[in-house]
């Protein structure tokens, strides 16, 4: 089992260090950081999450810019340790409201108290915030919320994890509001990350939705909740139906696979697609799902690169938003690698463009186009003239691209999976907790090949 647990800042400072078994030397954090920082002696190389140095196994994840690390000498289950590290991050975030170096340092006593309950002698005991509440007595000290960057969808990117702890709420699940009583509310977020690869002719090569229904409950008295999903939802494609296009025409939602949080009762799921649960405190994924059924990609991307003279070329990037005008995508970034011998790029935006930015990242030989907003149904174009230091090899499409796109679309989901209703068992007639059901779609790997 794990021997030590520690949290390092990006600079390698020790923020938290707990030794559970005393069998790994004390300097392990330093050895780890040096190894990760210069993997294969190269600062650009990214170290794998599991490696062994001198008989000590180091297992780590990156959460919110921090390194969560465990060491061990034995042949443990690495997926257990990785999940545990993620879960510790989540529990700490549940308690502290925000997870960063500052909040950890301000609450180190509480964090140690948590760590003692979460792990004993290297064995995970519980990572449920709900259960931990009965054993942990320190109260969190909130960090100044004003100093936290706004937690818009952009901040989700900074979290750097896929299941995204902290969608929108930055209050602690245990601390009381300044006003005294806690506000009764519950957040249900349907978060989808989509991956699409377009071929050079615009044909969809692969498409996939990774979705999560995430819940964060601040309800008092732990009432039972029912979450109803699309009635015609089905799970598991049967053999050949992968390429069954009938379903894409507004029919049933077919998930490839899904899994549920342990608190979820599936008694009536087969009947009417409702999930019943008593939500534990803290943030958790009610359901994770995966879909490869064909869906309409929110953006069409067209990219063209053409020779325009002896050592010149022209790039045309076109983005069309294929969704309803009532929906607006934000923080859009389009990137395209250009031939390595590109020396200069001049951009030409469409007339009257607002909130757009272009840049040529010379070091990475990449051009970037950022748009603050794209309204559904609109189309945007960028022209760029490239100057080369040499003549091209006559195969520009091999040397440039692919185009990659990042975006966030609030109140939109690609899979059409819906929360039909969210029912909270009533304690009294006056009990009217706030219910928030939100949808957001983000690009995971949204690529158009040249």
């Amino acid at each position: 089992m794990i021997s030590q647990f520690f949290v390092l800042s990006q600079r390698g400072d020790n923020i938290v260090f707990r030794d559970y078994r005393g069998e790994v030397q004390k300097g392990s954090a330093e050895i780890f950081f040096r190894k990760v920082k210069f993997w294969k002696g190269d600062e650009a190389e990214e170290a794998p999450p599991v490696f062994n140095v001198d008989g000590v196994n180091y297992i780590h994840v990156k959460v919110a810019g921090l390194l969560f690390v465990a060491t061990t000498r034995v042949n443990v289950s690495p997926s257990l340790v990785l999940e545990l590290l993620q879960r510790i991050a989540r529990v700490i975030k549940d308690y502290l409201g925000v997870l960063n170096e500052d909040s950890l340092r301000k609450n180190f006593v509480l964090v140690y108290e948590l760590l003692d309950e979460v792990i004993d002698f290297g064995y995970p005991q519980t990572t449920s915030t709900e259960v931990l509440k009965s054993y942990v007595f320190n109260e969190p000290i909130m960090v100044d919320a004003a100093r936290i960057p706004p937690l818009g969808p952009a901040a989700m990117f900074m979290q750097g994890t896929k299941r995204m702890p902290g969608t929108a709420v930055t209050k602690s699940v245990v601390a009381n509001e300044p006003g005294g009583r806690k506000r009764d509310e519950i957040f249900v977020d349907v978060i989808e990350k989509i991956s699409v690869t377009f071929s050079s002719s615009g044909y969809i090569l692969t498409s996939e939705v990774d979705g999560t229904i995430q819940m964060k409950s601040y309800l008092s008295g732990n009432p039972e909740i029912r979450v109803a999903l699309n009635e015609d939802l089905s799970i598991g494609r049967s053999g050949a139906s992968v390429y069954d296009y009938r379903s894409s025409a507004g029919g049933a939602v077919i998930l490839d696979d899904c899994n549920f949080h342990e608190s979820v009762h599936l008694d009536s799921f087969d009947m009417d697609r409702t999930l019943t649960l008593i939500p534990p405190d803290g943030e958790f994924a009610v359901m994770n799902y995966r879909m490869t059924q064909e869906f309409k990609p929110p953006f069409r991307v067209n990219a063209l690169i053409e020779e325009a003279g002896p050592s010149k070329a022209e790039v045309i990037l076109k983005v069309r938003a294929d969704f309803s005008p009532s929906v607006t995508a934000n923080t859009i970034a389009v990137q395209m690698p250009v031939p390595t011998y590109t020396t200069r790029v001049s951009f030409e935006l469409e007339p009257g463009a607002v909130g757009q930015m272009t840049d040529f990242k010379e070091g990475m030989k990449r051009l970037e186009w950022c748009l603050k907003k794209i309204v559904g149904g609109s189309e945007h174009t960028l022209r760029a003239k490239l100057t080369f230091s040499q003549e091209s090899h006559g195969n520009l499409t091999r040397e440039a691209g692919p185009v990659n796109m990042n975006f966030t679309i609030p109140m939109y989901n690609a899979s059409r999976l819906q929360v039909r209703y969210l029912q909270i068992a009533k304690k009294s007639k006056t009990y009217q907790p706030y219910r928030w059901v939100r949808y957001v779609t983000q690009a995971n790997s949204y690529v158009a090949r040249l």
Partner: protein
Amino acid sequence: MSGHDSKYFSTTKKGEIPELKDELNSQYKDKRKDAVKKVIAAMTVGKDVSSLFTDVVNCMQTENLELKKLVYLYLINYAKSQPDLAILAVNTFVKDSQDPNPLIRALAVRTMGCIRVDKITEYLCDPLQRCLKDDDPYVRKTAAICVAKLYDINAELVEDRGFLESLKDLISDNNPMVVANAVAALAEIQECSTAPIFEITSHTLSKLLTALNECTEWGQVFILDALSRYKASDAREAENIVERVTPRLQHANCAVVLSAVKMILQQMELITSTDVVRNLCKKMAPPLVTLLSAEPEIQYVALRNINLIVQKRPTILAHEIKVFFCKYNDPIYVKMEKLEIMIKLASDRNIDQVLLEFKEYATEVDVDFVRKAVRAIGRCAIKLERAAERCISVLLELIKIKVNYVVQEAIIVIKDIFRRYPNTYESIIATLCESLDTLDEPEAKASMIWIIGEYAERIDNADELLESFLESFPEEPALVQLQLLTATVKLFLKKPTEGPQQMIQAVLNNATVETDNPDLRDRAYIYWRLLSTDPEAAKDVVLAEKPVISDDSNQLDPSLLDELLANIATLSSVYHKPPDAFVSRAKAAPRPDDDEYPDGAETGYSESPSHAVDGAPAPSSTSTVPHTSTRYPVPAPAPAPSPAAPMPDLLGDLVGLDNAIVPVDQPATPPSGAPLPVLLPSSTGQGLQISAQLMRREGQIFYGLLFENNSQAVLDGFMIQFNKNTFGLAAAGPLQVPPLQPGASARTLLPMVLFQNVSPGPPTSVLQVAVKNNQQPVWYFSDKISLHVFFVEDGRMERANFLETWKSLPDSNEVSKDLTNCVVNSIDATVEHLAASNVFFLAKRRNANKEILYLSAKIPRGIPFLIELTVVIGVPGVKCAVKTPSPELAPLFFEAMETLLK
């Protein structure tokens, strides 16, 4: 509470310690609590606050749980350095362990278990005993883990005080959390002990399977991992187990899913119905794919595991290749693993799609990834004959982009393609030759030179091309020199004109006189002699037809694969190494003084870190064709040169296994779980440690050896010799041990033969062994031959035959002995166990409370042993009588039986 904890980190100008001392002794509770927090803050940043020990301990007696926890935290940290003072805390601990508040009781045992001070340990026993039977499950689950803590400090104490039994009782606890911790504790204790402590019977199995449904996710993993050691008795039981475990595949926790997959895969081995197996494969696919939607770190672990799974059961994911296509934002370590799996899943059906992907990847930014993508194309060409042409056209397309490292990588793989499909694709040679000047990597150069030599008769200016390389002959790396030598000889044999003749003179001269490399020199001399005595023979040798190669790179040896599959969902399955290759046996050795862990303390194992993750970008270790003879193509009959550069450990290990004389279908690794006894400790062997044991595997006798190099130097050139012995045991082939880097180790199975150099005289079990290497003096050590490795598979006797033989032998041939250390607990288990070692059961009868068993065994040259065992179930002491034509072997036979029955 007011203010921030971080204020405790602020330092004061004057003496911090005296100030804290004052505050700790303050009469106000809050002030004391604040002071302890400050102390802890100082401790966590690494300041020495041990001098405050007494003052902090004084704060321990408090009702305030928050403060108590802080003091305990301090105690855990400093008790080791202040053992005498730690005793002061014992009374409070013992008192707390009887507190009415279950949280305080649990806290007390939890903390006491963490204080590794002998004197405290003594006082721990009574509270622990009580807490194991506590009414509160929180206390019981804490106590269960505490038993493992205590075992780590003092195993004897745990055994003597009956804690193991209490722990086993907890398996039946009604609280699943307690069950899970008891299982975890027992599994850990079993891990460090050779005695059977935690054996899973069908009874415990069913109890644990029930607990599984109610446990927390972590508990589920403990239980699944413990159960994976269970061997079902038949297909039916296996199916039942699988049925109970399958719902775990739906769990949101990836660790649960992987542990469940491991368990299912293991039971599947026993399931005979193809329908059931196919169904299970179908069920496992979606959850496995879903793992790839998790965080990249988990994806990496999942991919390394999937890599193993598809080698064993390719059908599971055969239709899912798309999910392994690389995403734009995948970390490089994920991309590399996906590529490897794509190659494994590539088939005639999906190759067009796959090639399209590879082509994209080959133009990406990351150099290692691009190289691997190019290599992947080549590997697909070798694997799929019908797709070879398409692969080649993609490679040619890539060469035209003229990115240097792409071109070089492409040439390396094209060489392999030429070898795989001779006389098929030579038309592209001209295109390759255009890139000749840009080659600067040894492997690419060597490959190009090989191509020129191999097809010299079709390349008009082959002599000019080779000549351009010859100018720099002395400066080239050995790899290139060897190729140049062979290619020039080929050229000369194919075109014996004046130009080549001069070239061959120059090369042979260079390679014999001007070099220090023995491989190069020897090869040059052989060619020289061949050419000067019989050019026709030279032709037969150098231009001989080469054996066909296949894409077996990154394909694991079947026995290693099986071992790794048994270790799915562990680090072993991520490193693709058996556990004993990286788990240091710190446990077995006496602990060094706890507080000090000097860096050099763990000399038992150290791995060259860059190979921590094989399969990751290390071009040399992911070679397309691992056999030296194909990597450095040489005419078949000529001796294959051993590569001059020291190989990386990993490759070394694999090559060591590959090249072992053992036929391929033989297991090439010793069984897992049974560590070999150390015969030459590293203290005697100047840092070299040798562990070895004779073993029987599938009808053959092997000498399993483990070499560990704890010295500072590279050790190579290992050889082994056996002294004359009773059975004439000798090595059947040379010892295959790769050069050992400092800190590295290697395992090997040396096949043995019998009756080679039999020593006369009365039989003894002594086996004297000598091992030498190039760096050290010859080491002699002595091993013990256990007769049971000679028991042959066909030693079963028919009843009639048994009786007849028994009667035919004179009574003087009957010897008997009391094996006092043996005990038989179950006849069936013993019979099964003995049968596994080729001692076969014939009949049994009962006499009063005694069971009398008749068995037979046979050793080579047809010497039978007729055995009569008299046992009382559960009572130590087994009477063993044996009748055999060679009664002089009886003492050895009894020793063997004693080993088997223990």
